[in-house]
């Protein structure tokens, strides 16, 4: 009997010690006052949109200049004009283009643009704007400033949402075949499997040029 009491007494002490070292209890109301405020991605994007982004869009390289740069030194062109915050071979850069609309579909418009000797057909996405293309191409977000990858993803989502809800609807409503358009947006290129066929741009600014 005495042995049993000692045995169970020791077990209780060990469990008690483990619990003491494992758990702490505080009042939730006190904790919430010291909890850091959650990252507000839409507010961050709003600041970016009104602040640094317009200058970045103005300084975007034109598609024909990019064609020339890629032709003369592809590696240097990728280093200068393209960026990616994730692993893999996909790179994103801000590119300006003006051209004639060849076709309009529900999901995109196809534009003939670039160097007049070697024109390129570019799909400008007008429906499914997703991914990190705009965030990475803008080079305005530094991964070191964020401890949480979810915050980085939320920035992309807020940028994409703004393009989907604010930039594209008025453009999509008016654009038609044979219009001349001007687009600035994020171009995705694969550095390892480089090709200028089937180019796609996610627009940040797009307008119809009046004839």
């Amino acid at each position, binding site marked *: 009997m005495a042995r049993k009491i000692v045995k169970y007494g020791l077990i209780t002490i060990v469990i008690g010690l483990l619990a003491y070292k*494992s*758990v*702490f209890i505080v*009042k939730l109301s006190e904790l919430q006052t010291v909890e850091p405020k959650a990252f507000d991605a839409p507010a961050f994007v709003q600041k970016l949109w009104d602040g640094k982004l317009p200058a970045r869009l103005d300084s975007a390289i034109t598609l024909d200049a990019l064609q020339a740069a890629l032709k003369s030194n592809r590696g240097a062109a990728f280093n200068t004009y393209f960026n990616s915050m994730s692993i893999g071979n996909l790179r994103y850069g801000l590119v300006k283009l003006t051209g004639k609309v060849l076709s309009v579909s529900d999901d995109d418009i196809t534009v003939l643009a670039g160097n007049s000797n070697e024109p390129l057909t570019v799909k400008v996405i007008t429906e499914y704007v997703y991914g990190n293309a705009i965030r990475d191409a803008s080079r305005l977000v530094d991964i070191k400033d964020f*401890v*949480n990858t979810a915050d980085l993803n939320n920035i992309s989502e807020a940028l994409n949402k703004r393009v989907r809800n604010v930039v594209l609807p008025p453009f999509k409503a008016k654009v038609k075949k044979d219009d001349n358009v001007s687009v600035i947006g994020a171009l995705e290129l694969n550095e390892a499997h480089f090709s200028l066929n089937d180019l796609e741009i996610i627009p940040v600014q797009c307008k119809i040029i009046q004839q």
Partner: protein
Amino acid sequence: MIAIQRNNTINLARLQSVIALVVLCTIIAILSDKFLTMDNGWNVLRQIAVNICISVGMTLIVLTAGIDLSVGSILALCGAITAGLSKNGIKLPSADLFIGFTLLGALLGGIIVGSLLGWFNGFVITKFKVPPFVGTLAMLTIARGLTMLWTQGHPISNLGAPFATIGTGWLLGIPVPVWIAGVVVLLAIFITRQTRLGRYIYAIGGNENAAILSGININKVKLIVYSIAGALAAVGGIMVTSRLDSAQPNAGTGYELDAIAAVVIGGTSLSGGKGSIGGTVMGAVIIGVLNNGLVLLNVSPFWQQVVKGAVILIAVIIDKGGNKK
């Protein structure tokens, strides 16, 4: 006489495993110059540490002629619970309370949940006489669903440097996961060879009716064995979560098959009563080296599955052949 015969069979199975491992390593080393490097060696050991933990638990179950298909899901759930407790704690708004967990608390929480789920497996199997295959298959789905509920389908990331040490740290020049797997293996060898529980496990797998007639409380032994397997799956889950610094809701998918493969390749009979922890470790090393070699040799992931399946099939056929004798 029977004991000598059993030992000979185990030794033969182990010898077959060693020969298979040597042949495998030789072929991969000839075909890839990256295989026999220190970095790759540590990488393989780190990867197999998780499978060793799960496989050791699986071996104990298979020795009792059972099987546990739920270890992959339990791994995911316990990894997520550990991560969630460590990062977010438990909030009770109605009582205005926040229950926070230290790293030790979160680790214990995960392991306790794992052993409870394992115990529940054992309870269903012993109390309701549900075949282990079916009972643990149900737990596979239940635990995966609970993982989704706990995580809301999102990964739980950024768990902090102390937690990351478990999966990525080094101790005395050896990766921490390898130390953990080593301790698990030594404890399991001690249990199977030196304790009454170990002898009961072999006795139940060898002949359950004879074990009952000998006065062994087979239900109690099975409950313990399934609880240990659940706890070891939780340890594996903690290692995976720590290594990725993220608890993924779909972690551990298919891990039960790798564990069963390691057990079978290691010479443990699926009909129970025959096998060893050492053999399972060898089986896990073979699976790990095979996985690593196929990646280094740039074999398509689709073919990798075919090759792994074929290796398991051959091991089972050899096991069947051994049993006939």
